């Protein structure tokens, strides 16, 4: 049994299905009589819609419906809302225009949905969409923060004439001003955190059905949050009671934040299904994913920090702009504000902070959570700052960090930004990572590279992040001789079916294979907050564990009754209830016996061992660690090659090291991608997305990445019952600054002290050329 318990590299129960083509993703769902839908999207970043003529499309054989924003309004459907309250500079509440299911009067970014075409076949629907005549009156558009806040910029929303969507601040401006005035050294840094396209490999898809007899809607969708979608449909877009909506999520081909949210297409297919009396399927293609799925990051940050002469950080001022796109998406405004701001102390004992952030509307795809969601932005700022300060103060990157680390003896530590860290030994992680990466030998490797005409650099980042939000229910039920675990988190590739089964198998002492995890069905699972913020194992894990413990507690009563003993003397171990005298019954046999009403103990009314338990997170968790990146730069082409990558992480208790390593690998790859390759380019005049396909957007390929050398050294989290800290986002959070610090280190002999992400060959080449010209 131990072979499948906590801490073991159990091979995944998901894999046989996914490896043999038996996975069931939303696009694989096929309902009898289903019609195919496509969304006609705006080719303009900003335009008034004068008229939409659907006559030619409707006249085509095989076309079942052509629906527009006017139909949406006539049927009383709602909008996809933003759930974060936002205020203006004066503290007054700002408007939060919702995202319409189909734009009726004005389109605000390239990709805004304008019409839904439903036809017998996909090909017919595509052909018909081309025959819809939309009379657009193009308007001037803004693509960037700089353009949007310029005087006289065209407003994305008339109600927000200066495009400033919100103003947010945290901290003590006076204290920071005083500390900066008294500092020996001021270090300033202006950083661009580039916009990235999440690019889950499975494009979103939605299949909707409507049962006219019951009035119930059934949606198959690709989502990280089945219950969130259900709530969105019920409360905001379809406006029907929750019990009339059933959301089913099968296998999900990656999410990374993008699939947390309720999207217009989910409501559109259900609405269309009701209107035509047949199921309707929409499968997004990659171009649509680029245009219409939420993007990530896109912040501009100006940092001003005060240090003592010997390198102690005294105060930090952060002034940020965040590009929110054309609409405030679901959690969008929370990312550059609370989610970035709460981690601006990082691993450092920061005495004073003042952070302000302005959200800005542009005629671009809405920006929301992307793996890490604010925490990578905070980490990038702090770790770039530490390297810049080290350079200016004549310290090494590791020395300035050690000087400022929050030390283990100060745990639990309340940061100036709010969170209380329960545990963490940042120096130990740094030491281990530097040793593993042979940091000391880097100088020799640089010399060797220089002899070959190559520029070699090494960089590090010490990160801490915040994980695990809110609570989760879990139910364990006995069925067909096995055990089902029902939980409202949603795997999008992390391997929850395996990890939760490990927890249950260990707690109940049953074979791993006897446990089946059920997720993604809002009829079978009453509640759920889905998977985001690395919350599934830190929150779902303890909920599952508690449900298993509740089964044991119930079982003890049943066993005592059957064995004619006192419950107090029945002990449970290795899947078996036993009396002190050695009489006993196996859990699975007891579960079977419990279904016979004759075996009900006194006072017990329910003839099953099934149990539900809830875990509410009282405190967040704080995964942390150290990344070390080593690069070589070709001075002729500007091409950066990551030659070595080392990580030592503290994730607390490890459930499955194999799955954990996979999470870190994937996170690093996304971080390297953002740092070196992933450039989301909008044309500055037309606000057309120029990188709207894999031909144009540089997603990392296998040959772009190195092997990763990672190790875990966990201090169990003191505020989590299982000691788990969460790991889904950490790789992304540590990677960007480590990579860019390494690139700057490589270019340092040329006098380079700054480069923005993505450090593409062109950007690096230009930086090298500018440095040579200056010298």
């Amino acid at each position: 049994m131990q072979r499948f318990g906590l801490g073991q590299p159990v091979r995944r129960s998901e894999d046989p299905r996914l490896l043999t083509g038996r996975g069931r993703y939303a696009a694989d769902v096929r309902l009898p009589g289903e019609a195919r839908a496509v969304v006609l999207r705006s080719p303009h970043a900003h335009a008034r819609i004068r008229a939409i003529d659907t006559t030619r499309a409707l006249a085509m054989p095989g076309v079942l419906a052509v629906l527009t924003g006017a139909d949406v309004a006539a049927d009383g459907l709602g909008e996809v809302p933003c759930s974060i309250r936002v205020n203006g500079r004066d503290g007054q509440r700002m408007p939060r225009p919702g995202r319409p299911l189909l734009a009726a009067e004005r389109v605000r970014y390239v990709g805004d949905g304008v019409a839904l075409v439903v036809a017998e076949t996909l090909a017919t629907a595509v052909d018909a969409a081309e025959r819809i005549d939309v009379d657009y009156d193009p308007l001037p558009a803004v693509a960037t923060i700089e353009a949007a806040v310029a005087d006289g910029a065209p407003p994305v929303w008339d109600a927000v004439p200066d495009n400033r969507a919100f103003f947010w601040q945290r901290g003590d401006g006076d204290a920071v001003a005083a500390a900066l005035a008294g500092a020996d050294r001021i270090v300033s840094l202006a950083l661009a955190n580039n916009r990235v396209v999440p690019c889950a490999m499975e494009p979103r898809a939605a299949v909707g059905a409507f049962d006219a007899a019951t009035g119930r809607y059934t949606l198959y969708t690709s989502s990280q949050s089945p219950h969130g979608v259900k709530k969105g449909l019920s409360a905001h877009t379809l406006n029907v009671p929750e019990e009339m909506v059933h959301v089913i999520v099968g296998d999900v081909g990656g999410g990374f934040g993008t699939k947390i949210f309720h999207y217009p297409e989910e409501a559109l297919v259900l609405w269309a299904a009701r209107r035509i009396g047949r199921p309707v399927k929409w499968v997004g293609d990659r171009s649509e994913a680029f245009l219409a799925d939420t993007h990530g990051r896109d912040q501009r940050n100006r940092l001003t920090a005060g240090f003592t002469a010997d390198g102690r950080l005294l105060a930090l001022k952060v002034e940020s702009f965040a590009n929110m796109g054309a609409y405030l998406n679901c959690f969008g405004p929370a990312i550059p504000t609370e989610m970035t701001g709460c981690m601006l102390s990082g691993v450092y004992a920061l005495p004073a902070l003042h952070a302000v952030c302005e959200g800005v509307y542009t005629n671009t795809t809405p920006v929301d959570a992307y793996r890490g969601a604010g925490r990578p932005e905070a980490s990038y700022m702090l770790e770039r700052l530490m390297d810049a300060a080290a350079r200016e103060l004549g310290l090494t990157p590791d020395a300035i960090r050690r000087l400022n680390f929050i030390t283990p003896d100060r745990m639990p530590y309340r940061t100036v930004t709010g969170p209380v860290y329960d545990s963490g030994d940042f120096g130990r992680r740094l030491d281990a990572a530097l040793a593993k990466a042979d940091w000391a030998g880097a100088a020799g490797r640089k010399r060797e590279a220089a002899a070959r005409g190559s520029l070699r650099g090494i960089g590090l980042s010490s990160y801490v992040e915040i994980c695990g939000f809110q609570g989760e229910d879990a139910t364990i039920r006995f069925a067909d001789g096995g055990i089902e675990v029902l939980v409202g988190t949603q795997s999008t590739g992390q391997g929850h079916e395996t990890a939760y089964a490990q927890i249950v198998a260990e707690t109940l002492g049953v074979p791993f294979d006897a446990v089946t995890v059920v997720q993604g069905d809002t009829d079978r699972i009453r509640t759920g907050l889905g998977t985001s913020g690395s919350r599934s194992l830190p929150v779902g894990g303890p909920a599952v564990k508690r449900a298993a413990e509740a089964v044991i507690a119930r079982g003890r009563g049943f066993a005592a009754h059957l064995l004619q003993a006192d419950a107090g003397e029945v002990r449970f171990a290795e899947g078996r209830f036993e009396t002190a005298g050695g009489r006993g019954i196996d859990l699975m046999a007891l579960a079977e016996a419990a279904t016979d009403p004759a075996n009900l103990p006194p006072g017990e009314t329910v003839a099953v061992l099934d149990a539900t338990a809830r875990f509410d997170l009282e405190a967040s968790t704080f995964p942390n660690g150290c990344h070390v990146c080593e690069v070589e730069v070709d001075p002729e082409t500007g091409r950066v090659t990551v030659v070595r990558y080392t990580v030592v992480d503290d994730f607390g208790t490890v459930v499955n090291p194999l799955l954990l390593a996979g999470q870190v690998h994937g996170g690093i790859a996304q971080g390297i991608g953002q740092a070196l390759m992933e450039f989301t380019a909008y044309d500055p005049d037309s606000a057309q997305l120029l990188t709207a396909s894999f031909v144009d957007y540089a997603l990392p390929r296998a040959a772009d990445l190195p092997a990763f050398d990672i190790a875990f050294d966990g201090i169990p989290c003191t505020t989590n019952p299982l000691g788990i800290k969460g790991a889904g986002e950490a790789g992304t959070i540590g990677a960007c600054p480590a990579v860019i610090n390494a690139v700057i280190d490589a270019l340092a002999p040329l006098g380079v002290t700054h480069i923005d992400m993505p450090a593409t060959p062109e950007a690096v080449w230009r930086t090298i050329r500018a440095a040579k010209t200056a010298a």
Partner: protein
Amino acid sequence: MIAIALTVNGKPVAAEVEPRRLLVDFLRDELGLTGTHIGCDTSQCGACVVHMDGVSVKSCSLLAVQADGSQVTTIEGLASDGDLHPMQAAFREHHGLQCGFCTPGMVMSAIDLAARVPEPSPADVREWLSGNFCRCTGYHNIVQAVMAGARAMSTDG
């Protein structure tokens, strides 16, 4: 409509298809072989890789009529009697998949590499997989899996 006849996963298939019908759509929509995935519309991602006459091809870049008379193998055709193909088994053993969406294409592509290079180096694998995107794994474990799978295939063979 054009009549085609081919063998898919060892079984004869005859069908009438539109000239513009892509092989991937034919496999997915008409034969119900949904293990072959569509991850892009520009022939970049490789989620749709199948074998045609033993060679890996992107089924999004072929018309169904071009497969007329050929032997097509999809991810569904690899395992036999419930036993995973050595490459499939290697992906499981080395945790070479997370969300599983790119996996069928990765496995089909990797088997073709192994047939050509029995003991590929990490660099060989990374170079060969240039036509297959993965967003979950960072490729680290995929490289391990492909090397192990290739070794297992040459031992079995």
